[in-house]
């Protein structure tokens, strides 16, 4: 297959995986929440129809340009995140610093979610935006260190190398803390579940509270897509990507990502909303030391023990 055709295939595959993944995540969430399975499965379709039919409105003085850029950005960033992950064929962007690319993308979410809250020109939305920034301060550093652990073990920041290095043993077996910290980070930048006080019910929807119509659709879809992109990346980095017997590699990657997405969707309402002040304690006193400890152990094992 020529390079151009391969690149096109990778792009299409990335878009399809994201789209289908988001759809399934939303449908699964609906099945868990709704009165019947059939109702839950049609949730994405019904909500999309409802939101497309809705008018757009905003508060006077809202910064429409930045507000709408934020919504659109939330759909684009997951595409960028997934561009470095091999989904079967080589990734769209086989960057030598793929892990750093992913990290940059998730830091970009800081700006996007904050703009969603600030651009709306409403008090609840603004409070939500600042809650998100406070939560982000708590999960971001641990996330960065958790991303470093597989890179140290594989001696490379390229995601394809990290996936290849797990041919023998997936990294989750000897880096479980980093795996958990990364998943917490994925929930964090997706404004999901316990780490979603920025969009909490006590703020009447928070950063999402003023959105309507297609703007709302973009923001809500963006959250699901971030969740899926983060889960696929975690599966590539810790669960061995496409490695596995019998099934082709793309199939295994999808199965592993689906398990992670399902776990995050199930946990959405089961715990409590971690308000930023409380999450700050957890992030800096528990997650960060755990990530650093994990990194220390991995580094020792790699340099002294010769593991990889």
């Amino acid at each position, binding site marked *: 297959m020529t390079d151009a055709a391969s690149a096109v295939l990778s792009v299409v595959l990335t878009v399809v995986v994201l789209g289908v993944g988001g759809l399934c995540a939303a449908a699964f969430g609906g099945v868990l929440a*709704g*009165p*019947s399975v059939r*109702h839950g499965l*049609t*949730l994405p*379709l*019904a*909500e999309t*129809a*409802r939101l*497309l*039919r*809705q*008018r*757009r*409105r*905003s*508060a*006077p*003085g*809202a*910064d429409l340009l930045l507000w709408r850029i934020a919504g659109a950005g939330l759909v684009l960033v997951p595409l960028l995140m997934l561009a470095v992950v091999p989904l079967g064929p080589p990734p769209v962007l086989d960057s030598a610093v793929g892990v750093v690319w992913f990290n940059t993308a998730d830091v970009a979410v800081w700006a996007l979610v904050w703009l969603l809250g600030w651009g709306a*020109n*409403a*008090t*609840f939305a603004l*409070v939500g935006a*600042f*809650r998100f920034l406070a939560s982000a301060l708590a999960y971001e550093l641990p996330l960065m260190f958790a991303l470093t652990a597989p890179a140290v073990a594989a001696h490379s920041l390229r995601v394809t190398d990290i996936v290849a290095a797990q041919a023998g043993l997936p990294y989750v077996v000897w880096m479980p803390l980093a795996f958990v910290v990364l998943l917490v980070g994925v929930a964090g930048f997706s404004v999901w*579940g*316990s780490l*979603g*006080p920025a969009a*909490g*019910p*006590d*703020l*009447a*929807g928070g950063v*999402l*509270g*003023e*959105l*309507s*119509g297609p703007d*709302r659709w973009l923001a809500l879809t963006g959250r699901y897509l971030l969740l899926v992109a983060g889960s696929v990346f975690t599966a590539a980095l810790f669960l061995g990507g496409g490695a596995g017997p019998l099934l082709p590699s793309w199939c295994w990657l999808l199965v592993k990502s689906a398990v992670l997405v399902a776990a995050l969707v199930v946990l*959405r*309402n*089961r*715990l*409590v*909303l*971690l*308000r930023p*002040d*409380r999450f700050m304690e957890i992030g800096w006193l528990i997650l960060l030391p755990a990530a650093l400890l994990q990194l220390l152990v991995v580094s020792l094992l790699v340099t002294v023990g010769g593991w990889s």
Partner: protein
Amino acid sequence: MGLSATVDRLLGRLALGRLHVLPVEVPGAGELRMRLEHACRVRGWPLATSPADADLLVVCGSEPHGDLAAALDRVWQAMPGPRVRGTLSAVPELPGVLDELAADYLAWNRAEDPLPSAEPDQHGGHDMGDHDMGDMDMGDHMGDMDMGGPGGIALASGADDRDGLEMDVLHLPLGPALPDWPAGLSLLLTLQGDVVAAVEVTAAQRIPVHDPFAYRLDWAARLLQLTGAGALADRVLAARDHRLGLTGSGPDPVDLRRRIARSWPLKRALRGVGPVDAVDVPVEWGGDCYDRLLRLVDPGNDRTAPGPAVQDLPALAELLPGLLTGSELADVRLTVASLAGLAFIAAETSAGSPVDHPVGAAG
């Protein structure tokens, strides 16, 4: 947005499975609202979190007047459309009202229902800054106007906060149409950041109810919802619906209380929030939010014992400012939700007091 009529109708039909409902309770019509919520849940219609999220605005109870009517108008203005407004005044109307509203939603015509213009309206010198979240939200409004801000609304001015830093002052009304908020209560908060600098109680009304335990379960569920424990909240709602006779079976209240008491994240989230000294107030209101939550779901409280007499109402209005000033917005919501089931309702003292319901009925 030039959607042709057929596409619009098709989208409408697809959306009928999930219309977002914003129920607004006229004080005294709590049970109506609970039945409406149950009916919506059975259909799979979620409750709206904000007016921008809402398709149907349903007023439960008799015709609202005064502040509530004004609040409803602002909420209506904030709804983007397709939007339908309906009233539910008696239980037998219930299934019919929802079907009617769904049909109106489908038949909604954009041209017949224009959005209000974005011009801020002037009310006697005060710029009410037409923020479309109605009584849920008011961006900036201060006495001395500097009309140079965006949309013609004044920029927020700053003042020293509790740490001596200058921070913007925002005024936020928490009003009658807010979801998970007591119907008879209206507060005007002065916020700096998300810390409350001052609280003004603009309305506080005690509501006589027929079955306090159902209300307690309702408020326990809403408190759990605000805390983020959605799964537990759904169980408590199932218990509430069973209590109201809407379902044949429901969770055992004793088991429910045990499950809630065992939840360690819940304890960590609610411990130390909204502490009330039971000095001048009934013992029942004392403790922190966690204690009050346990009291709300305690089936041992299922008695027709009347709550504190109406003379306690001034004490409530005096208690809130002292309790809420200096806390964060999240704590305000949690504290008010925990007090609402205990302090804002009172058992009817008329002869029609509820018959002994079997405590801990396992359906």
